[in-house]
């Protein structure tokens, strides 16, 4: 069999910790290989090896061999990988924030033309041909069916757009033969993810070999021809996707059966009598997620879901309340007027926000897991500190205890609480973010996309934890998510946002059709006419 790419007997250790053991994978041209596994199973590491990433070579390289079209190759840098026609959409964004969309798509593949200097001093002094670059960038963007202003600076764009820009960049590579997509759909809504799957099929038709990594197993099942399952750095199964079901994959990934989230009863059900926050005519100027006129009463002690299609403003609501983007409107918190546009005011009043853009609100990558978990609580409230003589010092013991508890509850896969966060897998970094927000003991917790990039097993743990915070400590939770199933599994009510306005508030048991109509913004009419 002629494979476009084969990786044979790949083993890799980080500082004596073996994370890949004799892994074999293979993809043919025009084939889609789904690669799945728990957080920390080694998926990204395997792909980093393929792409010659510096992190692999600065930690002692790897064992095993890589073959492209049956020929041995030595990939020691991303540059070399690109020469072999390998493209990669990394799990974390590889976009330069200060550059425009065009500049990012064309990064290091700029179109240039000759000038006087370049004739004397060589190619690197050729002038950039911006109009031509712009044209090709626009073309690449429209190939994936998006409309993104190609001269916009990337920094201010919504995460979904950033993700599509990364994909447009790969599309634009003319010599692309092997494409790796490491969790490209994690930041996308279901509709957007569908669009991305179409793009994958389009690539496959063009004869590109594709490796697709995702924690959304139904997607993997839909788009892949073959699925390889990794567990703790070992391939546990690899078969045509037609021979799997979602639950089989999930079980093979985590090595045990998965149960549903249980919702314990409350002493007192939340009701409209006791409103913790009242939002009236909220407007939020968040590029790509504008909120135009949103009003709702949040009941004390409930779990409120916010759903809706991407770009309709569901992400804007929490961002506006937390002061991340300019907002206006009347908001009352526990009956008092609430000040918008002031993040520290929000935090002081116990309103904690976990952004969907976890890169943006940075983990301290070179700090330990425990310090990351405690950092904001220390900074904002002076928790985990004690008086010592005349100084305030960290209470190391308390920090450690708390960190260990979070590590256990959220199943953060790390060697110890003192490990630096940089060395965790992408999904486990996400869990540290969650742990940090949960540590703040909020009155209202706004979480956006809490299970983004987290594997099926851990997803349940995260939702369980949210439920237990709600039931045991009475914390009001507002959860924004693009996964309807997730909202329906734990929310008391689900608010659907369409075109920047509240379209409907539905119970979790409402039918798919009702949710569909609400998302299209047509629910009201249905109520009136039928």
């Amino acid at each position, binding site marked *: 069999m002629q494979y476009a790419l084969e990786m044979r007997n790949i083993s890799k250790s980080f500082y004596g910790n073996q994370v890949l053991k004799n892994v074999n994978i293979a993809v043919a041209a025009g084939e889609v290989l789904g690669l799945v596994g728990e957080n920390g199973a080694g998926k990204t590491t395997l792909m980093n090896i393929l*792409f010659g990433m*510096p992190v692999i070579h600065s930690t002692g390289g790897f064992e095993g061999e890589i073959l492209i079209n049956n020929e041995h190759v030595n990939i020691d*840098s991303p540059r070399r990988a690109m020469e072999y026609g390998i493209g990669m959409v990394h799990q974390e964004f590889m976009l330069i924030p200060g550059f425009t969309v065009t500049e990012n798509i064309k990064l*290091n593949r700029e179109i240039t033309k000759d000038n006087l200097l370049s004739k004397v001093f060589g190619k690197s*002094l050729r002038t950039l041909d911006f109009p031509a670059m712009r044209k090709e960038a626009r073309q690449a963007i429209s190939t994936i069916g998006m409309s993104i202003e190609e001269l916009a600076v990337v920094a201010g764009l919504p995460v979904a757009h950033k993700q599509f820009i990364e994909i447009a960049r790969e599309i634009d590579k003319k010599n692309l033969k092997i494409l790796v997509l490491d969790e490209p759909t994690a930041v996308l809504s279901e509709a957007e993810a569908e669009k991305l799957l179409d793009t994958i099929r389009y690539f496959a038709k063009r004869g590109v070999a594709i490796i697709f990594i995702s924690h959304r197993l139904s997607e993997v099942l839909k788009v892949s021809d073959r699925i390889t399952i990794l567990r703790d750095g070992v391939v546990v199964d690899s078969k045509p996707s037609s021979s799997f079901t979602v639950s089989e994959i999930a079980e093979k990934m985590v090595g045990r059966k998965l149960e549903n989230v249980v919702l314990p009863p409350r002493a007192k059900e939340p009701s409209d009598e006791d409103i913790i926050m009242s939002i009236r005519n909220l407007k939020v100027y968040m590029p790509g997620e504008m909120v135009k006129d949103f009003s709702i009463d949040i009941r004390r002690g409930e779990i409120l879901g916010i759903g809706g299609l991407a770009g309709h403003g569901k992400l804007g609501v929490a961002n506006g309340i937390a002061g991340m983007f300019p907002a206006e409107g009347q908001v009352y918190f526990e009956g008092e007027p609430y000040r918008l546009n002031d993040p520290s005011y929000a935090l002081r009043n116990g309103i904690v926000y976990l952004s969907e853009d976890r890169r943006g609100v*940075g983990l301290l990558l070179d700090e330990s897991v425990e310090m990351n978990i405690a950092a904001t609580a220390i*900074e904002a409230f002076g928790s985990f500190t004690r008086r010592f003589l005349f100084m305030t010092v960290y209470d190391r013991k308390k920090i450690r205890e708390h960190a260990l508890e979070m590590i256990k509850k959220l199943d953060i896969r790390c060697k110890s609480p003192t490990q630096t966060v940089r060395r965790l897998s992408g999904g486990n970094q996400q869990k540290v973010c969650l742990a940090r927000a949960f540590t703040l003991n909020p009155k209202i917790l706004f979480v956006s996309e809490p299970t983004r990039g987290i594997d099926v097993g851990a997803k349940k743990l995260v939702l369980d934890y949210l439920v237990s915070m709600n039931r045991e400590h009475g914390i009001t939770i507002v959860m924004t998510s693009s996964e309807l199933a997730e909202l329906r599994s734990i929310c008391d009510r689900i608010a659907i946002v369409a075109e920047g306005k509240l379209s409907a508030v539905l119970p979790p048991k409402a039918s798919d059709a009702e949710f569909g109509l609400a998302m299209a913004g047509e629910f009201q009419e249905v109520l009136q006419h039928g």
Partner: protein
Amino acid sequence: MEKLKKILISYAVPIAFSILCVSAVLVAQIPPIFLASEIVRRLSRNTFLVLSLIIPIIGGLGLNFGIVLGAMAGQAALFFVVDWKIKGLVGILVACLMAGAISVVLGWLAGLTLNRAKGREMITSMILGFFANGIYQLIFLFFVGSLIPFRTKQFLLPEGVGLRNTVDLYGTVASALNNPWMIRIGTVRLFVLPLLIVAGLCLFITLLFKTKLGQDIRAVGQDMHIAEVAGINVNKVRVIAIIMSTVFAAIGQVIYLQDIGTINTYNSHEQIGLFSIAALLVGGATTRKATIWNAILGVVLFHTLFVVAPSAGNRLFGQPQVGEFFREFLAYAVIAFALAMHGWRAKKILM
């Protein structure tokens, strides 16, 4: 309102300096014509050196304290041009070529060193400057006249080995760039050639950032890791940025010294590193952002203060020295402030 506040904050340093300058000018009661002629002259004399700092800043290397290496190369070249008695524009040209060649090597070495000290470029380039200064002193105190032949005895120390504290350029290349083309407007003299050369460098920098190489420098400056993953040869780009900066500093030092007319053998380069960096910062540049306009504005503001500080000091305290101390103090203060801001921004915890 918010916007205005943001603008005020981001231009805090130039605004503060403008206020300081205006008040100093008022106190000193310096005739405006005199001030104007001094500023124009200093623009043609110092701007080139200040501009040499821009490329490394955009390349993410911060303030290149290593321009003193270039300055040393410029001086070294001038010593020999003086010794060989090459006069006028030819002398300048020879000096620039020699200094350029030396600083390509020095810049290359500095670049390699800085690549091994990623994230600590500024302190490393500062140390490199001290180190190079040691070698410079060794060469010009002990080797010149002994190992390295030097004919012009009047510039050597009495024993015939080592250069004197000052080497003057009169009769060789002093004002060699200034004299050929001078325009007089009233009592203000414009030296057209140096100004044209400065304009040329401005043009070059502008054009550079429209080329592939310029784009690579910007990308590396914004995020080394992403640039590397995109296949850019990060180390090479950084070395090129440092080489360019060093070469421009060398040429800038030649331009500067031909205007001054004498070389302070063991001091000129040190001073010029300090004052150029301070001037750029005064113009509103930071350790991460710098433009041509920051350089020009910086030279104007910083040197206005230079010109008026002694008389202002004299009027206020009856002592010109106070003004001199004050400006030295300000130069260091501005740099310290920029470095502190740099550290603070790097540390800032979000949320």
